[in-house]
């Protein structure tokens, strides 16, 4: 069930502290924000600013020290492993920086993996559409080792979309790619939002990547220091400079 105001993910006063006493590290320091449906949000910030930590907590992969996360109206901060598994199956899509695909399965099998895991039959038309969108019609039966890094990452994006999740989280999905391949992947994420009405939250280091988003959140020392439209890549670079 969606929140009445169209917010898919709501974070309230998220705090994450690693360690304790003298050596304690505050990775997140009272972060509150919300992500609206059908929007593409980029999260940026200097290294160690807490981007990954925030994303992991939003995705239920990690638990906050304090604060709550509500996903599709459900508080996910106190779910057990079984409930979290179900949540990841039904509501979430993931794209990681590397190691996205299973080497033993073909591109298409990797693409439909979330459905296979859930024991659901993929809708053929939908899978075909995804494959066309990622431009891998010719490579359905290829194994990941036979695909380029960019192609692999495109399969990973398609996989994140295949179960039509409430939100797709991507942690530096282009971190490992050259600019042409990055462009393809970002383009794909953009189309996921525009054409398939998906919600995407992406952590990135790359100002050019952030420029594809509708909204840019900037973190620093575990706090949100900027939140708004990203503007062009140059604007983003300027913004980052100011922060440093």
């Amino acid at each position: 069930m969606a929140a009445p105001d169209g917010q898919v993910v709501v974070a309230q006063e998220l705090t994450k502290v690693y360690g304790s006493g003298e050596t304690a590290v505050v990775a997140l320091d009272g972060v509150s924000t919300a992500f609206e449906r059908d929007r593409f949000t980029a999260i940026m910030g200097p290294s160690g600013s807490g981007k990954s930590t925030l994303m992991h907590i939003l995705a239920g992969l990690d638990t906050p020290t304090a604060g709550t996360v509500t996903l599709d109206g459900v508080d996910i901060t106190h779910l057990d492993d079984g409930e979290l598994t179900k949540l990841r199956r039904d509501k979430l899509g993931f794209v990681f920086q590397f190691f996205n695909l299973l080497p033993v399965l073909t591109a298409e099998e990797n693409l439909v993996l979330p459905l296979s895991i859930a024991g659901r039959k993929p809708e053929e038309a939908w899978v075909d559409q995804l494959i066309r969108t990622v431009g891998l019609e010719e490579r359905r039966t290829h194994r990941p080792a036979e695909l380029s890094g960019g192609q692999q990452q495109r399969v990973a994006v398609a996989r994140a979309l295949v179960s039509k999740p409430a939100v797709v989280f991507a942690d530096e999905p282009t971190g490992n790619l050259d600019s042409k391949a990055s462009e393809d992947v970002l383009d794909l994420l953009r189309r996921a939002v525009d054409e398939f009405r998906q919600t995407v939250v992406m952590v990135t280091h790359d100002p050019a990547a952030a420029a594809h988003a509708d909204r840019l959140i900037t973190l620093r020392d575990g706090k949100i220091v900027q939140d708004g439209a990203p503007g062009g890549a140059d604007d983003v670079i300027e913004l980052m400079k100011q922060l440093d």
Partner: protein
Amino acid sequence: MTRLSVKSLWARKVRAFATSLAVILGVAFIAGSYVLTDTIFAAFDEIFTESLQGTSVVITAQNPVEQESGEVATVPRAYLPKVRGVAGVKQAAGAIFTPGGFFDEENDAIGTKFAPKFISSTLPEGLESLTYVEGKKPEGPGEASLDKSAAESAGLELGDTLKIVGAGKVVPFKLVGLTQLGQASFGGASIAQVSLPVAQALTHKRGRFDQISVAAESGVAEAALKRRIEKVLPLSARVETAKENAARGSEEIRDNLGFLQTILLVFGYVAVLVGAFIIFNTFSITVAQRVAEFGVLRTLGASRRQILGSVLLEAGVIGLIGGIVGIAGGFVIALGLRALFAAIGADLPTTSLVLESRTVIVSFVVAFVVTFLSALVPAWRSTRVPPIAALHGFTPTVSRGRRVVFVALAALLAAIGVAFVVAGLAGGGGISGRAARIGGGGIAVVVAVSLFSPSLVRPLADVAGRPLQWVRGLTGRLARENSKRNPGRTAVTAAALMISLALVTFVTVFASGLKSSVAQVIEENFAGGLVIENTDGFSPIPAGAAFAAAKVPGVKSVATIRGAEAKVVGPGNTVKVNGPSPNIEEGVEIEWLKGGPAKLRHLRDDEAIVSDDFANENNLEVGDTFELLSQSEVHSKLRVAGEFESKVGVFGDVLVTQQVMADAFKQRQDTTDFVILEPGADAEKVQAILTLGADRAFPTAEVLNQGELREEREAQIDQIVRLFYLLLALAVIISLIGVVNTLGLSVYERTRELGMLRAIGMSRRQVRTMIRYEAVITALIGAILGLALGVVFAALIAQPLKQEGFTLSYPVGTLIGILVLAALAGVVAAIIPARRASRLDVLESLQYE
């Protein structure tokens, strides 16, 4: 570098221990086999020495032909006065020491089925070695003693009835004393003492002794006394000092039980071989996983030799652990084996466990050699890691050309192996040479198949994995793909299981063939009637049983057969000689090749009927003569009067008259009685009467109909099969440790992948299932290969036995059972790795390097 490898081993100590376990178990079994047999031998030595307390010289009959179960030659009473007349003899007495049967008031047997029971005569003070711990020495008729441990386990007390069967009817005695032989333990064996004349009467050795014990006057050397006694006795008397006698006794025990040591060691070495596969695999995997580490070391300037040294040092440490813990484990295994043998009724004498230096040396050598050899190839591979691997990772690839060479090598090895097996089967050379050739060839074939198995992994994984995929969909599919991912690794893991299961299959198929052959022989030969034999299935029974049986209404006649071992004069080999009663063919059919039933019915004492094998081996035609030497040193010239087809059956190689059996071979007891019924007689009723009579008068005998006889034989085979299964269980367990180890390592390797699967929605349960099926597929690959190999070996070895009447039969149900059990074993082996995989923290695994 040394510090580094010790550290790196310590960092992976759980894995290192699991790897050591693969060596430890095999070494422990080898050490245990030695410890057990050495202990048994030591116990016998103790018995021999103890039983010769006070005796200086022992006189027995020469025994030129070793007997399997029949009568041993005796010495006549006439020797005694001659010996007593020799200067320096303080005391001399004849003694009886003959196998018999003991029963309690209710006719229940005392002592386990296969344990020897001896009827012994009391000796005069000074020569007696048994001490009476309770009661008194038996004197005169009606009194007997029993050794304390037998009495205790049978619940007998002084004053109770002890029934003894010798060569005649059972005789009841009153238990008047309990004995002990020093501190020695007889294991399951027991000794009953009666006075000398009673013992002679019981064993039908009136006027004869099994041995004469002599005590020397003080100051007279045993050796000198022996020489003096030799002078007054004929050559057929064997005169020995007590020491010589004990030495011969222990020598004979070592000969007779040597096979036990050999069999146990074979199982031990099989376990070691299986362990070698595991070590090889573990080292291969860890070396592959540590490629980056080696790369870093290389960039830091470590030489190839240093890398090699560090890996081999790890192997050395594992070998050392294997040796030390293996020897310690050997004691546990020895105790376990002893309990196992006791459980099947072979309760062997024991004393405190014996650890010979040979056991220690062999254990360490085996542990080191096996770990070093197994680690050599992986260690060499580690040296191939280029410094650049520190950055990029490195997978040593096997080129196509190398692969072809590999397969060619495997094929060659297989061919050589098969050739050796065939050569071994075809014969030539001693039994040990043949066994070595068959065994060596077998190992070569096994290694060849293992070399070849990486190529078989893909198709077999599909065969085994498809059904899983049908049932389980994605997890089955992933398990199948994962097991094919690293075919070499899966292959070696499966090969370890293959070896153990090949042996299990071989034993199963062979035993089933043996059973069906025995069943066939019984079916063909003993049509209708009843059979009387010893309850242990091989010892003779009193001749009186046949006479008594013949008088029972409904019994038409009783045919008997008695047997002994004899030496063929000339070639000198030992053959089984049987003396059937003239009416034998009423009970058992003979397949005549030359001559016929009439020949046998009217066989003369200077004639023999021989098997075709015997005739061929000795170039004999009907009318030719040959000469046999009996254990009592009687030479019998025999003329061939007929020929029969040799078969696994009752007749052995040579048939002579029962008169010859009695005169030359001193066999007056029967091996088997065949009861022929009157037409129309009620077999069940006759059997009931006979059984009742046997219980009362001849309790060592039992009456069996055709079905019972078959069941009895099958039960004997089954028992041996079960024993083999138990011994093979060790190898199976080791190969399962291999599955655990390989699976654990690949879970560790795939941590990130597993994290990803969990992140996109795979449940813990699904992860567990996936890993479990991976283990099941590996186990099934091993089982399929093992079944195939086992069946082929059984068929090969059965081939030359065909003409002896051996037919193979394939116990399909049991073989399928093995397959199912292997799959279940895979499930068990997967428990720990699957649990580990499912408990991985999603986030941590994703970030795992």
